[in-house]
């Protein structure tokens, strides 16, 4: 144990002996985080933490961080441990697992939920659906914690109507690295009132997160309210036995329409025209590979069917635009929106097919991790947030780049990712996904990393908005210098609020990124 006995005893006095441990087995279970961009790079690097603690309240979190400050103990806040950035990268870390803090309260009338950091989306969604409300299950799956994911990513299909996670954050309670508590939004004036996120005056949610946030590098959010949205969830029927579980969608209120194209441009054009009409609850193009691993019964099954299908897919390059229609106002809205979709597709072309009235992926994203079927690891070569037209341009370039690194990346065709619109089409998101095996051959991992850095350079060369910020990319090395050295401003804020740099070091600004892999990190190649 590297954490001082005195500090350990202090921690024990806060949470009791049941909820703190320096046992090697307990610590081992907190060595390696889940998926996320830099998991492969961490394979050989992640360290066992020095100690693990499970606080049960804000007060305990506050006291723990004060102990960390007093003894200069680096700490890592952990929600569900779904991302690699919560793996210790420096020795003798205190991993703070927040799962006991699963407080949840829903204001049904005013459509928001107050969550503790241990609450996952699936829990929130379960409670929301009963009340005719919904949150958005993110693309990474509803096993993610609501707070952790809001602070880090929060990208999902319903953003087309519900807006981005950054905006869904309302009042919140935040324990800064030194143990001081700050409350944001309406909570800044009233500890009990969480309904509003902005202000007072300048909006300090801006310090809390931007593209990807601090990834635990700025204390711990112990309570947060998130916006909820009207959604006829009571009418969903749960059905099936694992692995085929899902919601039967009430046909009078919900419908999937899938429209098929042979080029991404055609699909995007249709998306654009539909967004003008402001119809739908989700609007996206999804890669065909998703269909294959969603329907596969096992890895072997996926690879067999994928390899069999790939030659023809490469030849015909099919794209599927999906739109989920929901009658928020009732069946008549659904009828109207379907009419609009058919009218638009009639004008712009496309083969409309009614989807199965079934959902396991978007309302409560239950099968997100089936994305691991193909390789073992999925990462994002591009996170691109901007507009639809920018996304299409960049996605095409990224697809070319990906081919350069295939294999070891899993072979695919066309645009190997998904595009989706936000805010009824004002903004769009594009993610280029790559699948590979991070463990069987170390060179595959290395090649993936090289390709990834190349992708960042590509963004800069094309003057596209590189979304791989925070610990997801070489921020201080390449991205920051290209964007007015914004990372140095971030560093200054970090120096003020975490002068000891004890909150999940070295994140989010990892100056050592890539060094162990000997990757060329020059801005231009």
């Amino acid at each position, binding site marked *: 144990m590297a954490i001082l006995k005195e500090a350990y005893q202090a921690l024990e006095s806060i949470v009791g002996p049941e909820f703190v441990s320096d046992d090697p087995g*307990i610590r*081992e279970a907190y060595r390696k985080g889940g998926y996320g961009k830099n998991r492969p790079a961490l394979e050989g690097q992640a360290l066992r933490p020095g100690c693990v603690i499970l606080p049960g309240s804000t007060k305990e979190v506050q006291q723990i961080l004060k102990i960390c400050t007093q003894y200069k103990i680096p700490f890592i806040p952990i929600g569900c441990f779904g991302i690699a950035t919560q793996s210790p990268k420096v020795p003798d870390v205190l991993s703070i697992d927040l799962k006991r803090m699963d407080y949840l309260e829903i204001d049904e009338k005013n459509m928001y939920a107050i969550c503790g950091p241990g609450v996952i989306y*699936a829990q929130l969604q379960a409670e929301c659906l009963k009340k005719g409300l919904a949150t958005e299950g993110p693309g990474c*799956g509803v096993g993610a914690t609501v707070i952790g994911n809001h602070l880090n990513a929060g990208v999902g299909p319903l953003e087309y109507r519900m807006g981005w996670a950054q905006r869904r954050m309302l009042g919140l309670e935040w324990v800064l690295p030194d143990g001081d508590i700050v409350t944001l939004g309406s909570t800044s004036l009233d500890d009990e009132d969480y309904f509003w996120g902005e202000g007072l005056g300048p909006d300090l949610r801006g310090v809390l997160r931007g593209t990807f946030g601090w990834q635990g590098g700025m204390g711990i959010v112990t309570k947060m309210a998130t916006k909820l949205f009207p959604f006829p969830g009571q009418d969903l029927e749960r059905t099936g036995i694992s692995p085929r579980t899902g919601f039967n969608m009430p046909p009078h209120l919900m419908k999937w329409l899938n429209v098929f194209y042979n080029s991404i441009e055609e699909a995007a054009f249709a998306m654009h025209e539909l967004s003008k009409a402001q119809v739908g609850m989700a609007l996206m193009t999804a890669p065909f590979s998703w269909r294959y691993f969603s329907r596969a019964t096992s890895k072997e099954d996926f690879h067999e069917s994928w390899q069999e299908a790939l030659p023809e897919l490469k030849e015909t390059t099919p794209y599927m635009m999906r739109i989920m229609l929901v009658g928020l106002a009732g069946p008549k809205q659904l009828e109207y929106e379907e009419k609009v979709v058919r009218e638009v597709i009639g004008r712009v072309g496309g083969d409309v097919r009614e989807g199965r009235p079934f959902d396991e992926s978007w309302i409560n*994203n239950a099968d997100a991790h089936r994305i691991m079927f193909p390789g*073992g690891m999925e990462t994002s070569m591009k996170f691109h947030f901007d507009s639809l037209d920018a996304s299409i341009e960049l996605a095409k370039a990224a697809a070319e780049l990906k081919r350069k690194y295939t294999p070891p990346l899993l072979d695919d065709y066309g645009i190997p990712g998904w595009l989706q619109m936000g805010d009824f089409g004002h903004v769009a998101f594009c993610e280029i996904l790559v699948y590979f095996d991070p463990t069987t051959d170390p060179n595959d991992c290395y090649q993936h990393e090289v390709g990834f850095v190349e992708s960042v350079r590509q963004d800069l060369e094309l003057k596209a908005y590189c979304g791989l910020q925070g610990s997801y990319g070489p921020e201080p090395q390449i991205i920051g210098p290209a964007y007015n050295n914004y990372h140095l401003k971030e560093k200054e804020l970090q120096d003020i609020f975490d002068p000891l740099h004890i909150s999940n070091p070295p994140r989010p600004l990892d100056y050592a990124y890539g060094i162990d892999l000997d990757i060329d990190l020059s801005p231009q190649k």
Partner: protein
Amino acid sequence: MTLIDFETYRWDAQNCVRCSNCRWVDFIWMASLQFSKICPSSARYGFDAYAAHGRLEIALALANGELEWSPKVLEEIYTCTLCGACDVKCLRNVGLEPTQTLEWMRQKAVDDGQGPMPEHKAVAENIANNRNRYGTPNDNRGKWLRSDARPVQKADVLYFVGCNSSFKQQQIAQATAKLLNASGTEFMILGEQEWCCGNQLYNVGLVDQAREMAEHNLKAIEESRAKTVVASCAECYQTLKVIYPKLMGKSTTDLGFEVLHITEHLDQQLQNGKLKFTAPVNMRVTYQDPCRLGRMSEPWTHWEGKRGKYGIFDPPKPRRKGTYGAYDPARNLLNAIPGLQVEEMERRKDQAWCCGASGGVRDAFKELALWSARERIEEAKEVTGAEAIISACPYCKENFTEVITADKERLQTLDITEIMLQAISPEGKEAC
């Protein structure tokens, strides 16, 4: 030597993405915050070392020699009820089979002279000395028989009674026998030739001793020439159907006889019109899917091969995902009982919450076992307003009973055979 080769599953431990699905009820079926968890040890202790994803990391460290055995590490491993929920969840999405690694760790602990837990060793000693887990003379195994239960000397159906119903909750065996009679099923029993099935021996890593039980019982069954073996205990059922072939390096289909749980057999008889429930049972009940009758009961298919890139098994390995567990027979039977209102708990079928008794937990970690049972009882009360929680495994009932008695709950617990007995004859009520 461990029965399971960790190298086959190393890829799983390395590629666990920490999605935590293994801790939660299927996200589609999750219906509330309160009853959203599925792993008892993780829910009870909190630390990730008590959930499958953390245990995979521990396994990797043990295999790599980066972690040494300690009492705490043993506790982290043996507090798992091996209920199979993590397998169902992980296979649904990520395609890994954590239970194989969980079993391997216990086998390794025994191999390394560290496991199992002292309480398990005591049970193992009882079995070694007396062929049953309670240490009483095995000659008494058939003493549950009453005059109104009528086994025959030779029949196609063999009733494998199990230690618990033979020695402790004999009313389950008695009810089973009467139900077999009532459904026109001629059946035989092995008597003292029935040895403990060895479920716990296998689960705690005592592979060799478990194999000894398997060899004996399989031989006894073979000699009986039974075509069908019926078990009223979910653990015996799973042992016969899944663990024996696993231990013997064969598939379930190669056993030479069919293994049925009493609910499966009686459901068939119900559908055939040979079993009729005539006496109303006016009660509101809910049903506990025993893990080993439900998600863990799919047949075992022997597999040999290697694992390659992307974790692909060559040749493809059949996965047991809990899809084809025996969920419906018990429900069919209960729903056929006049007057009985059957309400579902939120966590049901493949998503059922383990009562906490299995995997050796009730013996070695009683507090956890009872905590888990208490959680389930809360769910039964809150979600369904039930008067009784019905199970199809004596260990579930035993565990529930202890909590209900201690907490002075008004809720009853019954084995499914007991409530069926009430439905075939008014006297059945008194018998229970």
